[in-house]
């Protein structure tokens, strides 16, 4: 069931928030020992919120489509009185005294918080094989990673433990688990969703967004999350679309006249053939629905990725510098990245932030010719847990670099991007289509994705557990 469907049932009286919440809690009880998707479950808190939602809905006081819907938060979002670990021993006893902006907004929308999801340590990696709290397992194959760093959120949504889970995305950490777990993952424009109260990794690359089981659910969540936060320096004053013009795509979306760019360079090189075929089929589907497909050349993505990595390593090491005396409490992979950042030259960081302007302008120019760009979300499906390299064609590639190389550049740009289910590989592991648009064009991005989702059933498929 999706949020849209559950919201309709709540309003028609065919279910209650308590029933939905108890069902999710039972699912967590049943599956979390196998998937390790949740670090903290808050049943008493959730049932109290559910009962309140039921009372309000019965009294005709609707707070919107998330009212009474059970959700989860990645364990980087601060929750007043509820432990927030960032998947790290450094924060294992951290009980925040205030909610994050996202926590506040979801509570105001009436969502029911089930708990906090497991993740890659400090949100700094893509496997979610957490050395302290144990690996998150992919519901499609529990021997495989769910992607990361929001791996618990991806697994929880895919396994129907909740209707939506929030993620954070610094180099693909929403879109990669979405692709690997067969969910939708939306990284909004930088500044669209407040970062206040989220344990920071990289202040200039971090984005917050939802993982859901449908595109329209992602739209409903963005509607609740978007908006100016005066307490976040990077929060944008750009107006949030409202009422008849809001983010939710209509029941029937036309792609007539929509200009879709398909890169002829980079994004289809060195890619698993199943990924290539699945994404090409989505391009054909869009063309069949009336979209105008244009072959484009994208700017130098490896250069963008290198620039993003300079910024990522520098900012993350600066952010975590205060924990240098506790570095041995950090797992070896994240510790190594933090060490790398301390060796980079300050001049490289400054020049990376200067180069960023150039790349942003190049991509803005590209979006004068097309409305959206289609690429694979990742060149591969989920790798087995513990596997360091993956073979693509004739080359062995580091799993971490392979998983992030189509996503990371978009964090540098700050443009919105979404991953949606688009097929399966030979092992029946999910694959993702990435759709990218110009800044603050989430409405169009979601409409294009909804049109494709309406014509396919990939998002409705799940693995029996």
């Amino acid at each position, binding site marked *: 069931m999706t949020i849209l469907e559950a919201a309709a049932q709540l309003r028609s009286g065919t279910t209650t928030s308590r029933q939905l919440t108890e069902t999710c809690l039972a699912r967590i009880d049943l599956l979390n020992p196998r998937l390790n998707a949740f670090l903290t479950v808050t049943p008493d808190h959730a049932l109290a919120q559910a009962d309140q939602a039921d009372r309000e809905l019965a009294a005709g006081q609707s707070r919107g489509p998330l009212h009474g819907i059970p959700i989860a938060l990645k364990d980087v979002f601060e929750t007043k009185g509820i432990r927030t670990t960032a998947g790290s021993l450094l924060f294992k006893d951290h009980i925040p005294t205030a909610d994050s902006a996202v926590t506040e907004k979801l509570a105001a929308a009436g969502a029911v918080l089930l708990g906090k999801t497991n993740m890659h340590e400090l949100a700094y990696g893509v496997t979610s094989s957490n050395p302290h709290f144990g690996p998150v397992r992919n519901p499609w194959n529990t021997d495989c990673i769910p992607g990361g760093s929001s791996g618990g959120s991806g697994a929880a949504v895919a396994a129907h433990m909740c209707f939506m889970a929030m993620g954070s995305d610094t180099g693909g950490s929403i879109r990669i688990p979405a692709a690997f777990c067969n969910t939708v993952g939306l990284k909004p*424009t930088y*500044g669209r969703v407040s970062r206040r109260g989220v344990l920071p990794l990289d202040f200039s690359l971090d984005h917050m967004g939802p993982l859901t089981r449908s595109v329209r659910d992602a739209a409903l969540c963005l509607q609740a999350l978007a908006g100016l936060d005066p307490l976040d320096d990077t929060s944008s004053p750009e107006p949030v679309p409202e009422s008849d013009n809001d983010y939710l795509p209509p029941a029937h979306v036309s792609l007539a006249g929509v200009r879709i760019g398909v890169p002829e360079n980079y994004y289809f090189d060195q890619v698993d053939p199943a990924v290539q075929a699945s994404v090409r089929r989505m391009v054909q589907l869009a063309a069949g629905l009336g979209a105008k497909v244009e072959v484009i050349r994208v700017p130098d993505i490896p250069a963008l*990725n290198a620039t993003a990595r300079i910024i990522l390593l520098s900012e993350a090491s600066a952010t975590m510098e205060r924990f240098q005396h506790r570095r041995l409490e950090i797992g070896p992979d994240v510790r190594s990245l933090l060490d790398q950042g301390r060796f980079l030259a300050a*001049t490289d960081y400054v020049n990376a932030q*200067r*180069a*960023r302007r150039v790349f942003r302008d190049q991509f803005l120019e590209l979006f*004068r010719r097309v409305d959206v760009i289609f690429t694979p979300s990742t060149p591969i499906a989920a790798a087995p847990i513990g596997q360091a390299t993956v073979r693509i064609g004739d080359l062995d590639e580091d799993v971490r670099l392979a998983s992030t190389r189509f996503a990371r550049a978009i964090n540098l740009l700050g443009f919105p991007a979404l991953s949606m289910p688009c097929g399966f590989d030979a092992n029946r592991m999910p694959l993702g289509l990435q759709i990218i648009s110009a800044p603050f064009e989430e409405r169009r991005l979601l409409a294009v994705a909804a049109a494709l989702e309406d014509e396919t059933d990939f998002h409705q498929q799940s693995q029996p557990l």
Partner: protein
Amino acid sequence: MDLPAEDLERLVPALDSLEAAFAPLRELAPHESEPITIYRLERVK
């Protein structure tokens, strides 16, 4: 920097590879271009 030798050795290939990738980009931005300090975006009109 106080790092064990084996940790240091592990960093070198990753840093070398990143340095090599970034080297041609150091002069990509025009001379007068300033670094982005707080990243902000606006809708394209």
